[in-house]
């Protein structure tokens, strides 16, 4: 779509870049250190702070990855938006923000593992937390990276691997040459543009599909066009929850949506290392109180709009999408004009040819045209599925469609051999890859200049998120692992640590790119962006959440309990991913199929459902049976003189 860009498009983009640069310079020149904000009393408007937080928190993973998942699975993902707002903003800011800030300052902790390590007076806790973050954060980084890459590849029609390399190079330059220090005003501007962009997207989408109620009804009516692969696992349409139950493959989707996407990410946000440390950078609880409102509305405008428009994009494409020509193989619903088309292409002399899909033994596919098979009376027949001499599968290219209201048939007359035309759903237009639904929708539906600005803003938001992710990886290795294990053996002290931090950032980035490269080759019902994000969020919840929340809220949680809880949460998650969870267990490769392959639904249950309860239980039981921590240390942690005050 962006191949032909007009002068107005270039001017709008240049204006955007100029304003971004100017605001970035203003912010950099004005208030630039933490001391300025916290101590020197320079006030940052809570509106600016919230939007900056939001722009860093929300990235391409949420909008492209999870918005695309909503395009595939439907509006049931709005439960994740509810969790994002209620758990990720309301509970996190109101109940966890202030204790985290106070304890972090009292213990002089600057990273999440350092906070845990100092609260529990345990270097093992700090090193373990640092190692888990360093090893698994690149997975989440890969999710954000892939989101940006999919958008670039779709918008500019360039190959995925080229786009991945291009985007990774830009990110590396940003992270290494000054990107580590967030510029609040630029982040806030990105936040404003994302907010406005998503709002415009929502209004445009609802207007395009006939309004809120009509749009939802249109989407509901499209459920009979769902691919069989989705209905067989419990998809009941984009405006319905998947079928609930346990013990049958038809309940798999409910467990995928609720246990992995909604709960895994919705709860996991509370124990995100790069977000928890943000609470320490505010001056008092007043700033957190003020940020809650803007944060809640911002998240609603980001994930709420992404998930709603992601699902509604199916209705948009069914009404306004590209037309496909084909012959009707099966009528799904005559009243609604829902049919199954065998795609055809025009040939010379007014004839038509079938589009055939060839799936090679290595999984690659190619398309070619062939003459339409007929019976003895000349009537067209369906394409028979067959396997050729080299093992490639040849079959017709079928597509569910809504017949065009103005001209449903291209060929005149009521005869049997007629070519129809119709539009399909976004799931099909994006070739079944949910990560491509949002980029395809925006580049198809929106004006060019808007698409370009949206692209730039999404990429900028992705870069601020990536920057904070890899900063966290670097400090986890340098400060939390190396400096904690061998503080005196590091030649050159802090300078040596800085080198380790930089190398770790580079290694983390390379790992993320490799994950992005190899993950593209996998095909699974839940695509790589939401999967990778959910794995990291779930892992953080099971490993850190009980020890983190227990540590800042209660004096009774003991160091052995925290360590045991973290180990149990981590090990259960790792074992579940390695041996049970699909498709992760087969991707890791120690088993060829889930060890619970014969027990339906278990391979779809997220590790969080097993790991977090066990981790909480371990924390409670071990705390009950171990000696309480020295009260003087607890007084220091909680800023109290009365040992029982916060118990």
């Amino acid at each position, binding site marked *: 779509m962006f191949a032909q860009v007009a002068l107005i498009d270039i001017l709008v983009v240049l204006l955007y870049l100029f304003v971004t640069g100017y605001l970035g310079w203003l912010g950099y020149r004005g208030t630039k*250190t*933490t*001391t300025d*904000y*916290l*101590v020197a009393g320079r006030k940052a408007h*809570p509106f600016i702070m919230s939007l900056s937080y939001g722009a860093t928190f929300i990235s391409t993973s949420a909008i492209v990855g999870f918005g695309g998942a909503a395009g595939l699975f*439907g*509006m*049931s993902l*709005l*439960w994740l*938006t*509810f969790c994002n*707002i*209620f758990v990720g903003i*309301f509970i996190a800011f*109101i109940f966890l923000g*202030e204790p985290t800030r106070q304890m*972090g*300052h*009292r213990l*002089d902790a*600057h990273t999440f593992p350092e906070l845990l390590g100092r609260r529990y007076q345990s270097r093992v806790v700090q090193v373990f937390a640092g190692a888990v973050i360093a090893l698994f954060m690149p997975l989440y980084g890969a999710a954000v990276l892939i989101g940006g890459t999919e958008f670039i590849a779709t918008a500019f029609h360039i190959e995925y691997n080229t786009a991945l390399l291009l985007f990774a190079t830009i990110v590396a330059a940003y992270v290494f040459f000054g990107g*580590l*220090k967030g510029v609040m005003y630029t982040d806030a501007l990105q936040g404003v543009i994302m907010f406005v962009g998503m709002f415009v997207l929502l209004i445009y989408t609802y207007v395009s599909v006939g309004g*809120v*109620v*009509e*749009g*939802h*009804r249109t989407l*509901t009516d499209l459920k009979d066009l769902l691919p069989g692969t989705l209905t067989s696992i419990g998809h*009941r349409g984009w*405006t*319905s*929850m998947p079928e609930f139950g346990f013990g049958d493959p038809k309940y798999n989707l409910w467990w995928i949506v609720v246990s992995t996407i909604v709960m895994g990410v919705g709860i996991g946000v509370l124990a995100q290392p790069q977000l928890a440390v943000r609470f*320490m*950078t505010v*001056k*008092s*609880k*007043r700033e*957190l*109180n*003020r*940020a*809650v*409102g803007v*944060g*809640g*509305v911002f*998240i*609603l405008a980001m994930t*709420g709009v992404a998930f709603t428009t992601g699902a509604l994009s199916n209705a948009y494409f069914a009404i306004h999408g590209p037309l496909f020509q084909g012959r009707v193989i099966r009528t799904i619903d005559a009243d609604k004009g829902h049919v199954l088309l065998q795609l055809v292409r025009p040939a010379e002399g007014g004839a038509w040819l079938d589009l055939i899909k060839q799936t090679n033994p290595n999984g690659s596919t190619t398309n070619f045209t062939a003459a339409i098979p007929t019976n003895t009376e000349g009537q067209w027949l369906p394409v028979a599925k067959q396997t050729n001499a080299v093992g490639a599968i040849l079959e017709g290219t079928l597509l569910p469609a809504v017949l065009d209201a103005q001209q449903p048939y291209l060929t005149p007359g009521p005869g049997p051999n007629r070519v129809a035309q119709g539009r399909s759903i976004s799931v099909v237009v994006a070739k079944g890859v949910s990560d491509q639904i949002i980029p395809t929708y925006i580049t198809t539906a929106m004006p060019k200049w808007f698409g370009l600005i949206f692209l730039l803003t999404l990429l900028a938001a992705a870069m601020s998120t990536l920057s904070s992710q890899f*900063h966290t990886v*670097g400090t986890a290795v340098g400060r939390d692992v190396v400096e904690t294990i061998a503080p005196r053996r590091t030649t050159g002290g*802090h300078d040596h640590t*800085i080198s380790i*931090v930089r190398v770790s950032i580079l290694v983390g980035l390379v790992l993320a790119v490799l994950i992005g490269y190899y993950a593209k080759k996998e095909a699974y019902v839940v695509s790589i962006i939401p999967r990778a994000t959910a794995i990291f969020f779930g892992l953080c919840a099971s490993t850190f959440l009980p020890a983190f929340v227990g540590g800042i809220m209660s004096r009774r949680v003991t160091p052995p309990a925290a360590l045991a809880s973290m180990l149990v949460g981590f090990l259960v998650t790792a074992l579940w991913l390695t041996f049970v969870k699909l498709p992760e267990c087969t991707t890791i490769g120690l088993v060829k199929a889930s060890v619970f392959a014969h027990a339906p639904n278990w391979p779809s249950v997220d590790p969080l459902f097993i790991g977090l309860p066990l981790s909480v239980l371990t924390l409670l039981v071990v705390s009950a049976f171990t000696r309480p921590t020295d009260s003087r240390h607890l007084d220091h942690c909680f800023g109290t003189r009365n040992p029982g005050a916060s118990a």
Partner: protein
Amino acid sequence: MLGIPDPWVWLAYILCLLSALACVVYSWRHWNRGDETVQPDDVRWAKQEDQLEEKL
């Protein structure tokens, strides 16, 4: 409701709006609450944080 047949989905839709509204109401009612004087711990933490950022 809202053209959505499944109560569990329209409930999520409504709860998203209500939870965002709850955030706004909370902020509005607590706009001036929670201000604290800067403690020595805060000053030490901020200076240390700046030093770390400067090195990176």
